[in-house]
């Protein structure tokens, strides 16, 4: 089975800013992707399944709730001690992995 750990964002406590975030194009998760709070992701079209770490699972659940990338990033910056530039880098990596694994809707 194709279990892939998708995210490397590090959990930290918040002590950083969340202003001046750049607007990013919407990243839509495919409608039929099944996600669970435990971080298990299933693509019913391809049969692929993945497991995410806690923050990866949080991001996907928020994407599934149709929250924008900017809102999700703001939320992460609010709740975790993470440098904005590092978040942007990890975010781009994560989105690239979601895209490569056929989980995004464009």
């Amino acid at each position: 089975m194709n279990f892939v750990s998708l995210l490397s964002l590090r959990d930290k406590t918040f002590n950083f800013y969340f202003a001046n975030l750049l607007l990013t194009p919407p990243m839509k998760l495919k409608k039929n992707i099944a996600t669970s709070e435990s971080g298990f992701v299933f693509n019913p079209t391809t049969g692929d399944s993945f497991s995410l770490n806690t923050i990866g699972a949080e991001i996907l659940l928020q994407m599934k709730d149709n929250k924008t990338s900017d809102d999700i990033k703001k939320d992460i910056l609010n709740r975790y001690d993470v440098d904005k530039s590092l978040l942007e880098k990890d975010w781009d990596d994560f989105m690239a992995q979601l895209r490569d694994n056929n989980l995004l809707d464009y």
Partner: protein
Amino acid sequence: MKAKKKLCIAVTGLNAIDSPGPGIAVIRGIRENKQHDVRIIGLSYESLEPGIYMHDVVDKTYQIPYPSAGSEALLNRLLQIHEIEKLDVVIPNFDAELQNFIKISESLKGVGIGTFLPSLAQLEARDKVNLYSFGKKHNLLVPADRIIYKVDDLKSVMDQFGVPVVVKGKYYEAFVAHTLEQAQKAFYKLQAKWGLPIIVQQFISGTEINIAALGDGKGNTISAVPMRKLYITDKGKAWAGITLEDKSLIDLAKHFISATKWKGGFELEIMRTADNKPYIMEINPRFPAWIFLTVGAGQNQPDALVKMALGEDVKPYTDYEVGKIFIRYSWDLITDIEAFQKVSAFGEL
């Protein structure tokens, strides 16, 4: 309370081994219908087919002649069995036996035994040997292939297709060959086991997906369930698989059924490429060994086939559960020498 309908159904393919026949899975599907009081008659070729000894699955087994004995020998044996058991339906599950069963289906009908099988022409059209032209005719994606009778022809085919190529037996088995030597070895192995011709097919890389489906013979799809192999054995068989949600795969099965008016169960073996093209690698003219997954997912194809063989109208299934998984397992069944002796000496158990 409505009395259960008594049925006596004969099933082949009891070889639940590492490369299993579909018989046991078909029987499990049939037994899921609690409206029926079913007696299952196993039809076996060899004394060590596990289903013969699985008495909670198969009530009684009779050996039948090998396909090479011809359709008349098969008919005579089935009529003998019918005298004793009063069969309602027969479900053959091996590619190699289908031709004989189709030939005698009218005679079976004459004595009250139902079948639900494709015609000889349908069987022939999707044969591996004719698959490429079949695909062209019906606008289906099929890898290029060459039918060869001599080992010397391998070189020119490999020059044409590049490497690797898939070397396939007439009925079963396939080997991926990366060199001419590997292809020659595969050729001789397949020739010894299944005879000629040998099919050499262009290699397509991608994700292996299978679709189990059932056509009503009038162009309607009664059921179609796609499955992705999650675990593949060294013989290329699915040891675990998961049902998929993909309209394009269902549409492919529907297209096949409407184009051919296929009657009965079948399996499409698909290779989905990275750019999402579904190549049909093979069309198996009977249920696959993983058919019980369709039952688990909510479309009981074996039961629907039994009903149609009995002349009942069956409404097409519309939904199935996506993400349903099967995981095959092996299990050591313990029996006594007396049982083996009975099957070997008397041809029944």
